[in-house]
């Protein structure tokens, strides 16, 4: 087990290293941050000063080495724009994104699983067909459009919910969270729905096909023949087996929700990491882009690991060490 974990950790480090090189070269290829950040009034002397101040006067490999030596000491550089440590900036924005992503995933499981189960057990009923048709919409409608429609209907027309922003926050574990206040929760609802729509559809479809496949299995037939109640057959024997693909996908989706909720965050002006990264890309704020992507890589690796560990408890056939 320890060896396995260590190996995974090493992999993580290598991927992060590769990522930092790619981002460094990528940002360099896109353009020059100084051209974007500098004031139009600046003269050539000021331009040279800014280039030097941001450490962009050195050759790229030297800039990278400087970055690497500092990164080893836990310093991922200072944002060009905010003049604050990039890591700190990202961590400040993380709670907002986390609560949005977790809220959306929670809704996906809470709504998607029962609907999928129903659609799988009664595939020919009208209700199931409606659910499946609805899930196609959930897949195919673009997030930004759905987000704007949600705002138009629930905020502008009906006035039930606030249109944008994060609302009041309360402090918990030293961070600011909005799900702890009523106002904050009201602000959370629309973006969470927006973000979860795709996931609900995904869970519905996965669950339905899992249920349909499992229902035909011999062990289900046997359980029925044994005279077990339909509820026990469904909720113990079928349910446990369809959970494996659902857990995998929900886990990976949680990762991508945290990393790439950019669209929802900018439509709802949600002050999370997604908005930070898109703003940073727009001004080529390299330290923030690099730090962000490295954190995301780390997060994906951890989520994958957690999914693998969860597998082994759900499915006794899966062995982590791969001893065969």
């Amino acid at each position, binding site marked *: 087990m320890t060896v396995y974990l260590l190996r995974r950790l090493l992999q993580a480090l290598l991927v992060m290293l590769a990522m930092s090189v790619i981002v460094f070269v990528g940002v360099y290829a896109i*353009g020059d941050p100084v051209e974007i950040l500098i004031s139009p009034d600046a003269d050539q002397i000021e331009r040279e000063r800014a280039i030097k101040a941001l450490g962009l006067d050195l050759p790229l490999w030297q800039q990278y080495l400087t970055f690497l030596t500092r990164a080893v000491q836990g310093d991922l550089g200072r944002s060009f724009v905010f003049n604050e440590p990039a890591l700190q900036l990202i961590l400040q924005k993380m709670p907002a994104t986390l609560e949005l992503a977790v809220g959306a995933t929670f809704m996906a499981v809470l709504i998607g699983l029962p609907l999928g189960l129903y659609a799988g057990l009664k595939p020919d009923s009208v209700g199931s067909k409606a659910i499946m048709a609805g899930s196609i919409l959930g897949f195919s409608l673009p997030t930004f459009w759905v987000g704007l429609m949600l705002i138009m209907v629930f905020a502008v027309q009906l006035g039930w919910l606030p*249109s*944008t922003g994060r609302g009041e926050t309360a402090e918990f574990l030293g961070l600011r969270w909005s799900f702890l206040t009523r106002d904050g929760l009201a602000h959370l609802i629309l973006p969470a729905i927006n973000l979860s729509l795709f996931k609900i559809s995904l869970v519905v479809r996965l669950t339905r096909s899992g249920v349909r496949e499992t229902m035909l299995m011999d062990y289900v037939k046997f359980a029925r023949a044994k005279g077990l109640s339909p509820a026990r057959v469904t909720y113990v024997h079928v349910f446990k087996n369809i959970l494996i693909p659902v857990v995998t996908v929900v886990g990976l989706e949680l990762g991508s929700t945290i990393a790439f909720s950019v669209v929802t965050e900018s439509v709802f002006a949600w002050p999370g990491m997604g908005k930070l990264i898109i703003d940073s890309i727009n001004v080529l704020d390299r330290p923030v882009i690099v730090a962000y992507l490295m954190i995301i890589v780390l997060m994906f690796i951890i989520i994958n690991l957690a999914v693998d560990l969860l597998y082994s408890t759900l499915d006794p056939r899966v062995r982590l060490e791969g001893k065969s």
Partner: protein
Amino acid sequence: MRSTFRALAVSGLLGLAATQAPAQTLTMAVGAPVTSLDPHYHQLSPNNAAASMIFSRLVETDDRARSVPGLAESWRAVEPTVWEFKLRAGVRFHNGREFTAEDVAYTLARVPNVPNSPASFTVFVRPIVRVEVVDPLTIRLHTRTPYPLLPMDMTNIYILDRETHEGGSTERFNSGELAVGTGPFRVVRHANGDRIELERNDQYFGDRPAFQRVNYRMITNDAARTAALMAGDVDVIDQVPTADLSRMRNDSRLALYETTGLRLIFLWTDHSREDATPFVTDNDGRPMARNPLKDIRVRRALSMAIDRPNMVGRVMEGAATATGQFLAEGVTSHIPGYPVPRFDPDGARRLLAEAGFPQGFRITLHGPNDRYPNDARIIQAVGQMWTRIGVRTTVEALTWPTYIGRAGRAEFSSFLMGWGMNPDGSHPLRNLIACPNRDTGLGASNRGRYCNAELDRGLEESSQMLDEEARQTRLIELERMALDDVALIPLHIQTNIWAARRGFAVTPRADELTRAQDVRPASAPAAAR
């Protein structure tokens, strides 16, 4: 059940609205994020807007960008190279400390020394060679040569307190701890990239702002900002997208506040290459031996081919003024009577033929697609109009981070730019038109690499003229010289637009700054100046 929920939700919202209604709290949403509360860290419009709510300057600017007294009550050149500023007495910082000439001296010394600044304010203090504190309310700034622009440069410098800010880092400004000024508002909380919460400074020396508390939010997505206004979550927004203008004009719950701005949208042509320029070919796609854009007749033809009024109406939905010069009417260095180039495709074809291109040529016109309102559509329109006179135009729109780097390296042959001007003609002339020269610091934004020695000499001369009237006459002559030579092709000057809910009125500013002190309840008369 559902109706009770609705009733609850509605009453909740009403309750919220009721507490906000007595016009004590103002919620505004701006389209560009404020990145720092350190007023000397990053010279950027949104940051300057935030700074001008919290801090004050020696010389302030009014809504038409004219200089007006701020922390300095008056100023004059006591000698050709010495400017004297008489400071306002009895001004206090938010923390109660008194403002004196020492604070000005401290501020001027801090400006060039802000670590890691990506765009500093140093250019505005560089002409100052010595600062002399005469008494607590008088300060003299010595320059190497006569420098008429010093008071105008001072409109960019926000004054800090020596005792409070000495050794203070940008981070401590951003946290709100050091965001302590003499301005109309004090900072309550700053959530980076999300909002600034402000409270009125009742000790402010100028006009008292109308609102006790301000929630200054940043909503960068255009549609979301508009929706927030229509939902009543915010009272005022800036940067109203032109596509929403006609709908908002007809919405009785909203009011628009507009003014002609100082941002010129124009086209650069390549002046630097005598031989082939990279994006111009002959009609068969072969590179040309010489750069046709060096011929003034070609540049004139390209300018005449553009139907500016039509473009302002169709592409900009009327939110701009067609122009043939740098500055709008009513602004200091506007050239009286200088015409908008007449739309004349036949004349343009004749000029092209005269210049030796009766069959025209091919060109690629570049522009950004995410920087200025409708930027990509503007170059598409121009491309069509150029094609009509025989200059077959391909249009290429790029994202700003890629575009600006390539434009800076003079990689394009013709390209779109926008530039926010100062009302003084020396500003566009020095930065856009003068020959790029590192030693003089001139022409730093001259991306077309236009160069005219006679104009440069005139500019040098005017930069030392202390007689304001004579200087303006000279500047206007020089502007005329540049425009007659089609150094660049002006298209239009943008209109700055704010939208507010009924009950709120905004004083629109030419300099695009969105500030809480410019908003008042609509019933109250406009603040007298």
